[in-house]
């Protein structure tokens, strides 16, 4: 069979090399190479979507395991199940949109697109790797292009934001490295194979001790929590988002944050089912804090982009609440919420980018009456805002309900408090909408052009998906339902109901 996963992982790398070889000054050629590199990825993603067997909970499109470093038993092992396939599809879509959204970049175009494509390689790699070492390498490889993309093409405080992002993520990943090494040395036959490790996790050397398992779980969780980001590790996110160029914010929000949740469900849960259940109360509590605290922070923001950054913190909290339930509906809600947040927040960041390109600032109070000046723009924004605040009929609603349903079973109090987040989200979204689009027309901006064709093209695919997933979520849910059901069976049920 055609190696779809390797193709998606390494084709962008080939594109990056090609861009590096193009002569200087051919900026448009570079842009087209980047776009033509991502389009096949999109085609491959559609192909995977069609070929993916929804009834199986096991790995599909498996490649390998092929030996890579035989002395350490490190293998090249790729494969996707329902959890990863949704992320792969999202990544393919977001990659293409990100290239389109970067069309206006003028500063060192060549390096920008080469780094962007390198970043895509890392993203696809993370979602398809089934070898712990391979996963780690892809996880880290993403840091390098991201650092430069924020640091060179970002806003005024870009250097601070870039280094903060890098330090936070590296801090998390060294913890993951330690746990990974422990697994290697104590596993039977010394392996990094995540599927094998999940089978034998409990019987390994010091892993037989509960305290050790809990410590390792916490190490991994912190690593992934930084990426999600979970309170109190979230402070890098507003900085990175605000400083990053539009396309990079879109990728950050739509794909990179998902890696945290993905990591927890791919590694923490199968490898430490008991520790995950033990700490599930904590996950739920953190989810609640994320939802409420993120929403309150968003409400206090004056910067449009920062508002959306905090709304991400809030929305990722739903994922935590959903997964803490250890039930199939909770897990389904989490994965669907990941997917939905990816599409909705991508739209929001693109929309902020549109107005920023014209006004060169993002002060929420600095606009006013934009609905009269840019009617089409405000219509699309209305759609995105309502999707974000969970209007029934749009995708956000379904996943939030599923997360609440999952969470309510075991943690009713946390869930009830979290529900207030929905009200708060509506509040800050509508308030921001009112300040930007309604009211008196700001004379300074009265001859702004409405949203242009390229910008619409980047937004329309997301709008369609949001609408379909809202009206008929079964298409999305079918993708991962069997995997999530199997995972919830593997986790067992919670022994006692918590708060």
């Amino acid at each position, binding site marked *: 069979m055609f190696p779809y996963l390797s193709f998606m992982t390494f084709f962008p790398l080939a594109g990056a090399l090609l861009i590096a070889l193009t002569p200087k000054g051919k900026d448009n050629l570079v842009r087209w190479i980047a776009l033509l590199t991502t389009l096949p990825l999109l085609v491959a993603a559609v192909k995977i979507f069609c070929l993916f067997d929804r009834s199986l909970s096991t790995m599909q499109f498996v490649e390998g395991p092929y030996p890579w470093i035989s002395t350490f038993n490190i293998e090249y092992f790729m494969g996707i199940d329902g959890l990863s396939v949704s992320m792969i599809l999202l990544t393919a879509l977001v990659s293409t949109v990100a290239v389109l959204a970067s069309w206006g970049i003028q500063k060192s175009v060549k390096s920008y697109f080469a780094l962007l494509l390198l970043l895509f390689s890392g993203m696809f790699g993370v979602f398809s790797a089934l070898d712990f070492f391979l996963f780690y390498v892809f996880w880290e*490889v993403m840091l390098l292009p991201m650092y430069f993309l924020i640091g060179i093409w970002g806003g005024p405080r870009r250097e601070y934001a870039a280094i903060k992002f890098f330090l936070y993520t590296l801090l998390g990943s060294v913890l993951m490295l*330690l746990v990974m090494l422990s697994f290697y040395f104590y596993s039977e036959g010394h392996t990094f194979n995540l599927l094998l490790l999940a089978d034998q996790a409990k019987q390994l050397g010091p892993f037989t001790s509960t305290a050790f398992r809990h410590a390792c779980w916490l190490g991994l969780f912190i690593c992934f929590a930084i990426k999600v980001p979970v309170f109190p590790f979230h402070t890098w996110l507003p900085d990175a988002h605000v400083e990053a160029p539009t396309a990079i914010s879109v990728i950050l929000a739509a794909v990179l944050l998902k890696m945290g949740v993905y990591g927890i469900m791919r590694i923490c849960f199968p490898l430490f089912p008991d520790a995950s259940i033990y700490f599930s109360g904590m996950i739920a509590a953190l989810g609640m804090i994320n939802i409420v605290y993120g929403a309150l922070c968003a409400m206090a923001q004056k910067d449009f982009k920062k508002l959306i950054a905090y709304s991400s913190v809030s929305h990722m909290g739903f994922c935590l609440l959903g997964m803490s339930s250890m039930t199939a509906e909770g897990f389904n809600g989490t994965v669907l919420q990941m997917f939905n947040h990816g599409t909705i927040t991508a739209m929001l960041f693109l929309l902020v980018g549109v107005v920023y390109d014209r006004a060169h600032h993002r002060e929420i109070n600095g606009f006013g009456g934009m609905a009269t000046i840019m009617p089409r723009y405000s219509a699309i924004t209305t759609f995105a805002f309502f999707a974000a605040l969970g209007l029934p009929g749009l995708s956000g609603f379904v996943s939030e309900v599923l997360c609440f349903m999952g969470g309510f079973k075991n943690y009713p109090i946390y869930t009830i408090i979290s529900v207030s987040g929905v009200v708060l989200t509506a509040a800050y979204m509508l308030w921001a909408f009112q300040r930007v689009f309604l009211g008196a027309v700001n004379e300074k901006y009265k001859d702004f052009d409405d949203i242009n064709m390229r910008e619409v093209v980047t937004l329309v695919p997301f709008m369609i998906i949001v609408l379909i997933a809202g009206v008929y979520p079964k298409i999305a849910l079918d993708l991962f339902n069997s995997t999530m059901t199997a995972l919830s069976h593997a986790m067992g049920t919670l022994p006692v109901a918590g708060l």
Partner: protein
Amino acid sequence: MKQDLIYFLPELIVSITVLFLFLLDCFIGKRSRRIFPVIAFIGIAAMMLANKSSSPLPSARFFSDMMVFDHVSVLFKYIFGLAGLIAIVIANGSHELEKVDKANYFTLLTALVLGMMLLANAHHFLMIYLSLEMVSLLSYILTGSLQGSRRSSEASLKYVIYGGVASGIMAYGISILYGLTGSMTLTGVAEFLRMNAVSKTALYTSVLMIMAGFGFKVASVPFHMWCPDVYEGAPTPFTAFLSVGPKAAGFAVLLRFFFGALSQTTTSGIEPIKIIGLPALLGGLSIATMTLGNLAALQQKSMKRLLAYSSIAHAGYMLLALVALNAEAVTGVIFYLSVYLLMNLGAFLVLIIVGDQLGSEDISVFQGLSKRGPFAALLSIVMTVFMFSLTGIPPMAGFIGKFYLFGSVIKSGHYTLAVIGMLNSVVSLYYYIRVVKIMYFDEPVDGRNLTTPMVSHASTVFALALLTIYLGLFWNGLANIVGQAKLF
């Protein structure tokens, strides 16, 4: 005796080269000094070939137990040889060394390589002491080789004083150990300690004192103080060599000392002797070393001082692996030294290329380097590779090195130490990435473009960068070679 000479062949070749260079100096005029680096290069290259042919030989002790031949010594000879070759290439054509007498410099450099080889083979404390002194003395001279430069002379003097004190303390420690065990060979000491009870205090004291000498060589806390000043004062091409060669030799002898004299082989593998708490001692030293190195490096303005403190931190990481005192630790240290050699020499070579053209060794000289023309843009990428590799980020070789080191620590169950070590490497990111940051995010202070340097420098620096990436992705080959490392 004849048999012994087979084991000694690589050393013999270097010795002959050194003697030949000395003689040549008397007969050759000032004009043809260019021949010296060539001969030194050929001599060391020949040594490496001889080393390769001797590698299948079984382990043995020779010259009446003075020296030992084993796979570890073969590996170290490769490391020293490679460091020597690269150091010759770097030094040849460096602006800084233009006024230095080529005959002296390259003869002494070759002799220094010989000293390191002897140190890595030493099995008798007398031999250890003598070869350590040989390495030290030659290093003092080469540090001060910039005649007329106050900084260079000052560095040399500081180095002599510190070195003198350290080796004095070590000699005293050796005499105590001899008094305790009645043996001067490493295995003799181990044998005695296994069969007899000795005074714990006396043994601990002597180990601490001996560590002064070794710690001085690898620049570990509290014997690191010379390091930043000497690195800064010495001519940069020699600093580059100093940061990898003698440090590697120091680790060779550390490995021999701890595994030869202070460990015993049990059914479950090698174990440190139980009389004194070696893991606690080494763990403490290692944590102190890496933390101090990393924290001090954060504040530096001079690139040479930054690399000096970073080399202290790297010594700390390698000491951490010694805590484990298992077979993985030997492999880990040797693997780390091999990749450290590539990335550190690479970083120094970039500094030399940039420093020679822009006339400064401050970090600020890297400001906007990526915008100083096409060669500078390539060189910035190369420097970025070295900096990320030194931090330990995949897919660079430095990450694999750390992977090995921390692997051995995890395997021995010292989780707290492993966590502290890992956090240290997060701290180190901050100062390494600062160099990357100013290369890419800042603007150059003037409009000067970087011209392409001499072919040997340019090709070496690119080769080192490519190797650093290659070994980060496909390290099976190196792992197989290093994995055979067996002591004694």
